């Protein structure tokens, strides 16, 4: 097995912070921890090249550095790319993650790295990569490299990869199902008994933590504001021209309400499972309140209602979709000079 190993200036033996500006260098064979890595991989594994780069140089010239590194790794005909371990070093972790992602995506060989869970590189790249949890203590180098080598061998051998606590990698935040011996009812009662007795229990899912969204400033003067309606309740014109999926939608549509004061059920349909759409079918204004918005517009309470509404389906929609669609809608609304949006859901 041919291995290329990436190290920063410190682990590459060049120097500390004063050498952080070092440009990318390629050296033949193993350097520093690479010797141990080679030994732990066994089976005639050989570190054929070590790439060493200063942390500042790598971060400040990331695109150029990545391109140069990719070229060298491809030329080395490597079977495995190893970066770090980086422990708590933030710049090192970011670069190692970016390199591993690029090598995995562009060259398609197995990659492995190691970081502390608190390393910003772990946060950015753990979904895409297997990152061995290195902790923050470089004195544990042998332990960490042992786990990295063990998982790397499974990856290059295309073996099944176990769970984070068995393999030692940082949970990627992904889900796969497994059939287990106990029924859900048995697991449920067992869990509540442990909890009520104050014993440890192993929740099968953890609730995500989301960064709070800051409240935007209020609209200064509604009488001059341009408003827009957006819904994720799946209201689309008859025939669903944009083929917006009724569940886990990946698309959103823009529909004209120009010259219209009241939405009529016969012109629309609902592409959204999971709720009882009969009331919206009877009167779509119940979901997209055009009728009352027009009254407010006529009364001068609002400046103007934008003459199109955006629509998609929110049902069972993963955040990876909704984040993208939300961003796209917000960009479009900004371009249109919209001051405020009323979002209606079901």
């Amino acid at each position, binding site marked *: 097995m041919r291995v290329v190993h990436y190290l920063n200036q410190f682990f590459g033996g060049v120097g500390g912070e004063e050498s952080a500006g070092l440009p990318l260098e390629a050296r033949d064979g193993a350097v520093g921890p690479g010797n141990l890595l080679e030994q732990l991989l066994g089976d005639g594994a050989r570190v054929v090249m070590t790439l060493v780069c200063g942390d500042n140089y790598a971060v400040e010239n990331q695109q150029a550095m990545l391109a140069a590194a990719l070229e060298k790794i491809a030329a080395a005909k490597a079977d495995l790319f190893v970066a770090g371990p980086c422990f708590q070093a933030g710049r090192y972790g970011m670069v190692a993650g970016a390199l591993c992602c690029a090598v995995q995506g562009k060259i398609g060989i197995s990659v492995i790295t190691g970081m502390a869970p608190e390393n910003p590189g772990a946060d950015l790249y753990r979904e895409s990569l297997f990152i061995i949890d290195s902790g923050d203590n470089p004195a544990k180098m042998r332990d960490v490299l042992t786990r990295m080598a063990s998982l790397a061998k499974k990856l290059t051998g295309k073996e099944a990869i176990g769970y*984070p606590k068995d393999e030692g990698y940082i949970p990627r935040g992904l*889900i796969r199902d497994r*059939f287990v011996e106990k029924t*859900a009812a048995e697991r449920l009662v067992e869990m509540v*008994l442990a909890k009520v007795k104050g014993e440890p229990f192993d*929740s099968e899912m953890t609730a995500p933590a989301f960064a709070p969204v800051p409240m935007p400033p209020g609209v200064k003067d509604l009488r001059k504001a341009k408003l827009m309606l957006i819904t994720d309740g799946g209201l689309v014109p008859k025939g669903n021209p944009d083929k917006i999926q009724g*569940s886990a939608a990946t698309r959103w549509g823009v529909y004209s309400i120009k010259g219209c004061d009241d939405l009529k059920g016969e012109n629309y349909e609902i592409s959204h499972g999971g709720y*009882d759409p009969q009331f919206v079918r009877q009167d779509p204004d119940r979901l997209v309140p055009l009728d009352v918005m027009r009254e407010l517009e006529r009364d001068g309470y609002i400046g103007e209602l934008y003459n199109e509404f955006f629509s998609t389906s929110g049902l069972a929609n993963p955040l*990876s*979709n909704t984040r993208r669609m939300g961003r796209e809608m917000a960009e479009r609304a900004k371009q249109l000079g919209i001051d405020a949006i009323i979002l209606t859901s079901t």
Partner: protein
Amino acid sequence: MPLTLAIHPVKEIRSGANTRLEGTILVIAEDELRDVVLKVPGIESVDFAIVRPGESCRAGPIFDVVEPRAKAPGGSPDWPGILSAPRIAGHGTTHVLNGAAVTLLREQSPGESGGTMGYVLEMSGAAAEGSHYATLNHLIVIPHTQPGLPAHAQQKSYRSAQLRLAVFLARTALDAIPERTQEFDLSSDENRTALPRVAYVGQIFSRQRKPEPDEQILYGGDTDGMLPTLLHPNEWLDGALLPSYHVSLGGAGTYFYQNHPVITELYRRHEAGELNFTGTVATIASADNFDRERNTRFGANLVKWALKADACVLTKFGGGVPHTDLSETARILECEGIKTAVQVTDLARDQRVESALLFNFPEVNAIVCIGGNSTKWRVPPVARVIAANSDLAEILAGPFEIDSLNVVGVANQQGASRLRSMVY
């Protein structure tokens, strides 16, 4: 309120001249069964099929799976509020044809969240391994209703035919000696004060849909306007409850009310002296915030003041929105010092943890997650496809890819699922 199950194992269903139980063989006379079904208004004709565990067979779309059970005289009646007067269910002796099922097929694909093929019974292969239903001997019932019957009337006919047949079959065991009996009784007066008091809150419907006209869910009632209700655990097991016609996500079947995995597990642990099973609350997931605020508080209040529980397990019904009612009830209970564990389905179509739950209350941290979204099978053609008509049979012929949520029993939300989401 003791309930005794008189259990008669059934190892085989066979056709014969008259319907009877011969040891572990249930003999059925189709003419007799047809007489039972054709008494139900709206049904013009009916076909039957017998399916064995492990057989290369696929049937669908499934309306419901019911275990044949019949009440012995002197106890509560069969299906009170539905087939009998609305007396309290759950006491006396119930004869059970254990290992058998009456499984009724729909005539149309249910569409919407059930998908084109609806819920499918797989009796062999990898998909079958995930469902308890594949281990049963099924009497498949294929009703043909009057053309033009409204959907709600059609489904009421299905329900009535299926329950009547199940009772009719189990009555063959009324005079037989059961292989064993099982007692469900919480009235013991022994001193159990040291054990944690554990309650169960189960959603029995989700107002993501209005119930169909005449839909029979709780003692024949449709849950419209329902507030959380105290039920004795035996009421769940013995005929008070039926799943809605809309069992989205393959979530609920009558069979697993009769054999309720959460209730039977709480009973088992109660008898083992590990906990005090204090009772249950049946509730529904709400359609709006007013109902949600009221229902979650009422439910939690019953657990606290009526059941005086130290701990509570909760399950949901239906799709995503019920996560909200479930977790809010659990959160209120936790605030009252009552420890909770909840069972959910995984909602992450992108297989990311961040999309799996519709709540993030720090207190609601004991979560059983039956997956579903990352399990599918490529199922092969089978020797026998059973469906109500040739169009449906063609859809089910195989090979095709089927999601775990569409294989009946796999992602069951009543506690029967052995599927688990693993985070990696």
